[in-house]
């Protein structure tokens, strides 16, 4: 807790500041979304997203990235208010978001699996027709993804109850295990994080859906940064750097899977 002092304003109020041609960019990472972006035990940023940003920063000589973690709502409000320049943390793209923020091209892909009881015959979202998934908070990316998928498949009707408070993964899985709901709509990595603590095992389906995740920029910033970063994202995906990171964090190559699903060309 330090009141570091208030220096007289130099040039602009934007969170970024330039010094000898190198522009400092304040990146904020979501604090609560392991393994994508989270705070480690000491409160420092960590996760796949951080490694992605570091890889990009290495390539960009005229920018220097600074990182901090922040709570979900606060980070989003902070970007809009110009307190931070950019936000990363497994955010999906929606038309409404595209209006409120500048969005990067997808730097990663997020895949959904269904977690179902071992004896279940459910293997895909189509199999869930007329059935239910464990409740999801509307602010969760999974909600965006499943609603998106349902729009693309108007003939499939799945009950997606919403709640106002996100339960732990463990609880959601418990609720499916005891039959309250039919499936948990979750990524395999997230399931893997808790599976040892369950005391029983569940079936994880193959990937049922996926979507790209993007970086959110303050809308009032120029497009230079976005363009420069986008260029590097493509380059780093193509040269396999991101695939290495993906293997390191998720034990799989998200980019290869995305190519298979047709999400990435």
């Amino acid at each position, binding site marked *: 807790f330090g009141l570091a002092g208030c220096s007289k304003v130099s040039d602009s*109020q934007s969170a970024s500041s330039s010094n000898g041609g190198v522009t400092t960019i304040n990146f904020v990472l979501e604090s609560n979304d392991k393994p994508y972006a989270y705070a480690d035990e000491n409160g420092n940023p960590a996760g796949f997203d951080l490694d992605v940003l570091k890889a990009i920063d290495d390539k960009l000589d005229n920018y220097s990235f600074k990182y901090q973690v922040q709570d979900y709502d*606060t980070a989003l409000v902070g970007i809009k208010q110009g*307190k931070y320049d950019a936000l990363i943390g497994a955010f999906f793209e929606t038309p409404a978001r595209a209006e409120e923020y500048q969005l990067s091209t997808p730097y990663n892909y997020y895949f959904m699996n269904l977690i179902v009881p071992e004896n279940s015959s459910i293997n895909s979202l189509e199999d869930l027709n007329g059935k239910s998934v464990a409740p999801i908070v509307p602010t969760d990316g999974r909600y965006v993804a499943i609603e998106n998928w349902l729009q693309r498949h108007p003939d499939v009707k799945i009950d997606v109850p919403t709640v106002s408070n996100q339960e732990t*993964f*463990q609880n959601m899985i418990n609720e499916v295990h005891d039959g309250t709901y039919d499936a948990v709509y979750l990524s395999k990595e997230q399931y893997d*994080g*808790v599976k040892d*603590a369950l005391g029983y095992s569940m079936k994880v389906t193959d990937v049922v859906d996926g979507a790209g995740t993007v970086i959110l920029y303050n809308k009032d910033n120029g497009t230079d940064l976005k363009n420069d970063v986008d260029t590097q994202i493509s380059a780093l995906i193509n040269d396999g750097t991101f695939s290495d990171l993906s293997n390191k964090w998720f034990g799989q190559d998200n980019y290869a899977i995305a190519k298979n699903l047709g999400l990435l060309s």
Partner: protein
Amino acid sequence: MESPMQIVSKVLPGIIAHIPQTLLYWFLPSVLALFFGALLCWARVSNRHRPLYWICTVVISFFRGTPGIVQIYIVFFGLPKLIWAIGYDVSDWTAGVYFVIATTLNLSCFMAETLRGGYLALDRGQVEAGLSIGFSRVQNFVHVIAPQTLKVALLNIKNLEIDVLKDTSVAYTIGAVEIMGYANRMISLRSGLGQLWILGTAAVIYFIMCTVLEVAFNLATRRISRFEGVSR
């Protein structure tokens, strides 16, 4: 699978290490709010300047009437811009500063009304006795009004303080990490595993602090109202 004991022993040192932070986020607003609350209360009860009365009434109404999170956001995002507008850059202030400012503003308004409750119970004759022996307003306040108002208000002030202590747990929403922030961080690091146990550990720590506060205030109440009981 980890046993609850293992989980608790893993997070306990970290939680304890964050106690000073929590206490700081509690102590600063408490002390400041006592001062500002008294000022607001004075403006309301003295009813001396109509404009001042109305300004204070609106301020109290605003900070009591709007959700804390909105106040925190307004301070966290709005204040730096305001200060920037008058020519200072405070972008390097830590989140804790904003949290303390927002809490102080909010608590002051509740405090003002609690103090007003005590003041209403005050016998006019006591105030007049003070004035008649030549006390200035400040002297009368310090020697007559404050002690007797506090006597009635103390129980309620205690409760405000206890609540502020517990509400420090909101600080993590803007990144000021104390006990609750740390607990949340651990929960998310562990993908929600053992959430109940971690929260429970934090709750026990809060409980101990609150109980200490409660007991201390109860002793103070007894001492401050000793002039009432039958002498024994």
